[in-house]
C-alpha cells in the first residue's frame, strides 16, 4: 500500500529521532543512553496487522488514539447503516490511504522472542536482561529500555512541495479568471472551478511520477462538486436571479398570467382561483420550493425541469435527483363543478416542486 515502505519507522512502541543511526551503533558498541521519558511517543498512524478485521483500519486508529477498536468497529457499522452505506466509502478510503504497518519478524532477545521490523539488528551479546523488556549495559550499569529494532535508515527524502505549488497555482488561476470575470469577460463560475480542477489534476499527474501528493484528490473532489453545482444551477436560474429573494404567494385569477419568477425563496402557486376553462402558467424558482395547489377538478399538465432536488406529486412516490425532467399529468379527482385543464411549465434550479390538491 505504502509506496515507500517507511523502514525508518520504529515498532509501534515508540520512536526516537535518529533511530536509524542508533541501530548501527548497537552492532558495534553500546548506544548512547536514550533520553529517559515516561511520555509515550506516538507512532505514525498505520493499519494494524495484529488487530485486523477489515484491513486493520479500526485496529490502527484505536491503537493510535487509545480507543478500543471493537468500539470503533461497532461505530463504523452503525454509521454505515445510518448513512445508507455511504460511510463504507470513507472506510474504504481509510483502507487505501492509511499505510500498512511493516510486517514483523520474530527475533530472539535475552528476554524471549520479540517482533521487529525486518531486517533486524542483532541484540548486542554484551547486554543482559534486566526487568521486563529492559537491558543493563554491563560496562556502565546503565539501564536501557527495550531496544528498538529498526531497518537500515534510508536517506530521508527531501520534502515535496508539489502539493503546495499545485494548490497555489490553482488559487492563482482561479483568482485571475475571477478578475477577468469582474472586468467584464463572460466567465461562468463553473469555468473558474473547472480551470482550477484542471490545475489540481495536472498536479496529481505530476505527482504520480515524481513526488507524492495524493491528498490533492480532496481539493479535486471539492472543485468537481463546485463545477457540477455551478453548471446545474445557473442554467435553470439564469434570468431569475434578478427576480428577487423571499417568499411569494402567486394566486392567478386570469387564465394566462405573466410568468412568475423568484430567484431564491419559497413560492406558493395557488391555482384554486383560476376561472373556468384552460389556463397556461409558467413559474420559475432559482433556489427554493414551489408548492402548487390545484382544485380537485383540475387536471394539471406539468412540464419542466429541476436542476437538483425533489418532485412530490399527489399519489406518486417522491422523485429525487439531478436534472429531473418533469413531463406528467396530475389527473383531476372530481368532475364537479367542471374539469379544467391547466398547463403548467416549471423551472427550478435547486429545490423542490410539490403539487397538492386543495381539500375543497
Amino acid at each position, binding site marked *: *500500500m*505504502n*509506496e*515507500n*515502505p517507511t523502514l525508518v519507522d520504529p515498532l509501534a512502541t515508540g520512536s526516537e529521532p535518529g533511530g536509524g543511526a542508533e541501530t548501527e551503533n548497537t552492532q558495534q558498541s553500546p548506544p548512547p543512553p536514550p533520553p529517559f521519558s515516561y511520555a509515550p511517543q506516538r507512532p505514525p498512524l498505520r493499519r494494524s496487522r495484529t488487530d485486523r478485521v477489515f484491513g486493520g483500519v479500526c485496529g490502527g486508529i484505536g491503537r493510535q488514539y487509545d480507543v478500543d477498536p471493537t468500539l470503533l468497529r461497532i461505530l463504523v457499522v452503525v454509521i454505515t447503516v445510518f448513512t445508507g452505506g455511504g460511510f463504507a*466509502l470513507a472506510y*474504504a478510503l481509510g*483502507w*487505501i490511504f492509511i499505510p*500498512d504497518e511493516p*510486517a514483523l*519478524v520474530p527475533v530472539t532477545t535475552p528476554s524471549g522472542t520479540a517482533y521487529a521490523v*525486518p*531486517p533486524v539488528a542483532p541484540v548486542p551479546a554484551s547486554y543482559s536482561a534486566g526487568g521486563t523488556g529492559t537491558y543493563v549495559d554491563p560496562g556502565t550499569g546503565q539501564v536501557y529500555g527495550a531496544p528498538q529494532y529498526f531497518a537500515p535508515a534510508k536517506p530521508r*527524502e*527531501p520534502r*515535496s512541495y*508539489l502539493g503546495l505549488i499545485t494548490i497555489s497555482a490553482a488559487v492563482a488561476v482561479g483568482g485571475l479568471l475571477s478578475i477577468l470575470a469582474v472586468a467584464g469577460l463572460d466567465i*461562468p463560475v*463553473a*469555468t473558474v*472551478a*473547472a*480551470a482550477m*480542477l*484542471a490545475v*489540481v*489534476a*495536472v*498536479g*496529481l*499527474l505530476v*505527482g*504520480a*511520477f*515524481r*513526488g*507524492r*501528493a*495524493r491528498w*490533492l*484528490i480532496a481539493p*479535486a*473532489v471539492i*472543485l*468537481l462538486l463546485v*463545477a*457540477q453545482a*455551478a*453548471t*446545474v444551477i445557473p*442554467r435553470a436560474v439564469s434570468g431569475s436571479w434578478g427576480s428577487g429573494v423571499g417568499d411569494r404567494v402567486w394566486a392567478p385569477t386570469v387564465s394566462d398570467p405573466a410568468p412568475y419568477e423568484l430567484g431564491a425563496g419559497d413560492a406558493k402557486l395557488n391555482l384554486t382561483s383560476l376561472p373556468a376553462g384552460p389556463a397556461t402558467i409558467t413559474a420559475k424558482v432559482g433556489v427554493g420550493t414551489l408548492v402548487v395547489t390545484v382544485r380537485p377538478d383540475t387536471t394539471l399538465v406539468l412540464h419542466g425541469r429541476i436542476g437538483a432536488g425533489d418532485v412530490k406529486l399527489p399519489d406518486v412516490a417522491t422523485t429525487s*435527483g*439531478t*436534472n429531473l425532467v418533469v413531463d406528467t399529468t396530475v389527473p383531476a379527482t372530481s368532475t364537479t363543478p367542471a374539469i379544467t385543464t391547466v398547463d403548467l411549465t416549471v423551472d427550478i434550479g435547486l429545490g423542490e416542486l410539490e403539487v397538492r390538491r386543495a381539500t375543497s
Partner: protein
Amino acid sequence: MRRHDLDWVSLIAGLVFLGFALVYTVASLTDVSIDGRFVWPIVFVALGAAGIATAVAATAREEKAFAEVERTDDAL
C-alpha cells in the same frame, strides 16, 4: 525531486479529474449539457480501480520482501 515508482492512485485520479475539468470547461462555455448522474460513479470506479492496482502491486512487493527476509532468517 527524486524519481519514484509510478503512483497509480495519483495517475488515475489525475486523468479522471483532468477529463472532467475539460468536460466542465466546455459545458460551462457552450450549450453542451452533462448528465451529472454519471460523474460520481465514474470517479468512484476510477479510484476503486486505482486502489486495487496499488494493493496488487504492494502485495507482490511485500511478498517478495518477505521471501527475502525468510532467506535471511534461514541464513542466521
